[in-house]
């Protein structure tokens, strides 16, 4: 029989036949490894997941025209292509026109309502979002002025002439006007400027004004950090003709501040939790190994060299560390996934490299915490240990 076979036989016998104690040690290592892989996964995933949460603050980038003209759909689309599709949460184009309702001047805006819901998740609509042409979303301030509520009808009038109407002209109806009836689908409450507008769909606006493929600006919500955003804005401004991309500083700057704090928090928590857990694992391993001093003495008496005793105990420890590490990385992933589902309702991105890292760290920690007591045990005179009890 080869020496290695006996080595393995001793180790496996020690692991399998001393079940209760080995389970204690294995449990300790597995818990440590779970915390390691779980927390590190969360730490890496938090900025991404939290970043998505921060998108509830709305648009963080806007496109405007760089040449004084209006934006066209093709310009917006080619600019949008510069942004990684998976990071783009939404892009809502806006066009503003002065209109009148019952002779009261006001501002009408057209947008893509599906996209607007994505870029401005904080909009609160009393009623329904417009889902078809001929429906309008009325800002709360306007609604109060016009005394309309959801379900009412408003008539938007657009002046095709450039010059403002004089009272006389208006009375005679001599102005060149387009008008259209809209059903109020909902009242918009934002606490901001949007409450002063009436929002209608793009085809309605084009029909009213007679001008197609015209946009004033596009609001974009991009799930990326400030540096990435700056890079995107730079690329688009430089490479896409007619489009100038700017960051909404209020959102990007503040997000950067808060997100970096959050990440620092999770990092520090991770470090401290890990540190303490590793020490716990180490003390448990030490207790488990210290218990076997008598065995060390016996092996020495049988003629084992210090080296081979350390080798055996380490072998056992390392095997235990590897099993615990593997177990822990699986549990850690499950934990991180559970956290992600609970907190963010989305599945976590697992970094496969964490499995070997977790195993290596567990092996190192167990190895080191075995080494210390084994070394001390081998220093002791075997006769003393054996006589001890």
């Amino acid at each position, binding site marked *: 029989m080869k020496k290695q076979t006996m080595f393995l036989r001793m180790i496996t016998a020690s692991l399998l036949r001393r079940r209760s104690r080995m389970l204690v040690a294995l449990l300790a290592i597995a818990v440590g490894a779970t*915390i390691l892989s779980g*927390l590190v996964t969360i730490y890496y995933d938090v900025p991404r997941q939290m970043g998505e949460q921060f998108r509830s603050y709305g648009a963080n980038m806007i496109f405007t025209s760089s040449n004084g003209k209006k934006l066209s759909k093709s310009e917006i689309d080619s600019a949008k292509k510069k942004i990684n599709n998976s990071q783009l949460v939404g892009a809502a184009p806006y066009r503003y026109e002065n209109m009148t309702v019952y002779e009261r001047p006001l501002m009408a805006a057209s947008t893509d309502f599906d996209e607007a819901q994505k870029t401005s998740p*904080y909009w609160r609509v009393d009623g329904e979002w417009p889902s078809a042409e001929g429906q309008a979303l009325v800002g709360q301030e306007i609604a109060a002025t016009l005394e309309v509520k959801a379900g009412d009808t408003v008539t938007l009038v657009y002046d095709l002439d450039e010059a403002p109407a004089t009272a006389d002209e208006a009375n005679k109806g001599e102005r060149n006007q387009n008008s259209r009836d809209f059903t109020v689908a909902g009242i918009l409450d934002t606490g901001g400027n949007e409450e*002063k507008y009436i929002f209608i769909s793009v085809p309605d606006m084009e029909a009213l004004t007679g001008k197609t493929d015209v946009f004033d600006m596009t609001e974009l919500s991009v799930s990326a950090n400030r540096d990435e955003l700056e890079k995107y804005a730079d690329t688009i401004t430089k490479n896409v003709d007619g489009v100038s991309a700017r960051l909404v500083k209020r*959102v990007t700057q503040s997000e950067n501040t*808060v997100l970096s704090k959050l990440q620092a928090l999770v990092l520090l928590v991770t470090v401290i939790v890990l540190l303490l857990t590793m020490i716990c694992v180490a003390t448990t391993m030490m207790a488990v190994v210290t*218990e076997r001093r008598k065995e060390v003495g016996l092996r020495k008496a049988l003629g084992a060299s210090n080296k081979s005793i350390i080798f055996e105990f380490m072998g056992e420890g390392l095997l235990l560390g590897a099993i615990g590490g593997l177990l822990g990385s699986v549990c850690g992933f499950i934990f991180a996934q559970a956290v992600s589902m609970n907190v963010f309702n989305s599945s976590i991105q697992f970094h496969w490299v964490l499995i070997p890292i977790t195993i290596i760290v567990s092996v190192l920690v167990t190895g080191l915490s075995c080494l210390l007591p084994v070394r001390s045990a081998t220093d002791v005179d075997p006769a003393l240990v054996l006589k001890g009890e």
Partner: protein
Amino acid sequence: MFFRMIKGALFRQKSKMIMIAVTIALGASLATAMLNIMLDVGDKVNQELKAYGANITVVPKENSVLTDLYALDGQEETAAAHLKEDDIGKIKTIFWGFNILDFTPFVNTTVVLDDETEVKLTGTWFNHHLALNTGEELDAGIHSLRSWWDVKNGQWLDEQKEGTANGGAMVGTVLAERLGISSGDSLHVKTSDGEKTLSVVGVFDSGGDEDEQIFTTLATAQELSGTKGLIDSIEVSALTTPDNELAKKAATKGPGSLSPADYETWYCTAYVSSICYQIQEAIPDSVASPVRQVAESEGNILDKTQLLMILITILSLFGSALGISNLVTASVMERSNEIGLLKAIGARDYRISGIVLTEIIITAVVGGVAGYFMGYGFAQIIGQTVFNSSIEMKPMVIPIVAVLIVIVTLAGSIPAIRMLLRLRPAEVLHGR
């Protein structure tokens, strides 16, 4: 010497207890730190989220007509309603006054420059010193409400400095570029109510519409717009509790729809809607409404952060609990010989358990107390590093940690003791 001490500590009987105490201390410190951080993280992140600026705006009740839209049509707005400057301080006197972190009034007007172009001018407080009739004194203003402003040259306007209080101004970067002015220059503006030469203190980049505006002190703007003692709106930054069902009901159906008990709960909780309601009560003829972009997102992020921390805390509590009970189990098992001997000389089971448990509980208490203070240290390290402020130590954490430690040590030792007691003494003594 250090290693010698460690070695010594490892192999002397008493020192085994020290090791258990150390592990319990580590576990307790982890639990203490995490629980305290978890309980305080809401407040801390809430403070950080104030970087997004005001979450409540207050406007006059009758401000039904839209100044800027009418101005687009070239018509003069005459009947615009105003709030009174004297009422601003009342914001700080509401039930949740302590949660009001900052606020600033605004006066908006349009001025004509020397080149006959029209520019929006906003009067506001920068760092206005306010003495309330409650005796409290504070500085309020726009500085913390525009944390994202990047002052490109010059500096923030200091109202409390002689000379800048009247006529000092900050100019948006787009406007400054167009006019070719920078800090130190002066800018002549006129309105129908008067004219004035402003001295530019700083140029700021806001990344938004404000880059085309002039910001000056409230008094200067009031003088230019002829609205002495009056203001157009107030922005308020308040610490709020994330909305729940109750708050949503109050916000959509009005506080009147709540039952008296619900009303009381709602009124006495720092929901954004209840703070708005209280501001309206305090300032006559005003409408306070939440800035949805800030208020809604804030609640969302606070909820997520808190939940995240709760889950991490649970994991670390679980980890430290297992760590402690593991070590206790290991160390009890180690004493199989001793327990076998005690049994062999005729000790009753409960006496043996009593001896072992007492020792472990004493160790646990020592470790737990030490751990609490270590945990205090860890919590403060995190608080200072991340938030630059200390973490408040909640007294309720002490009993939680104490109960946890006792349960965990008992859970770790009792099964091990029972197992050893089941063994026959001869087996134990003969090296099973």
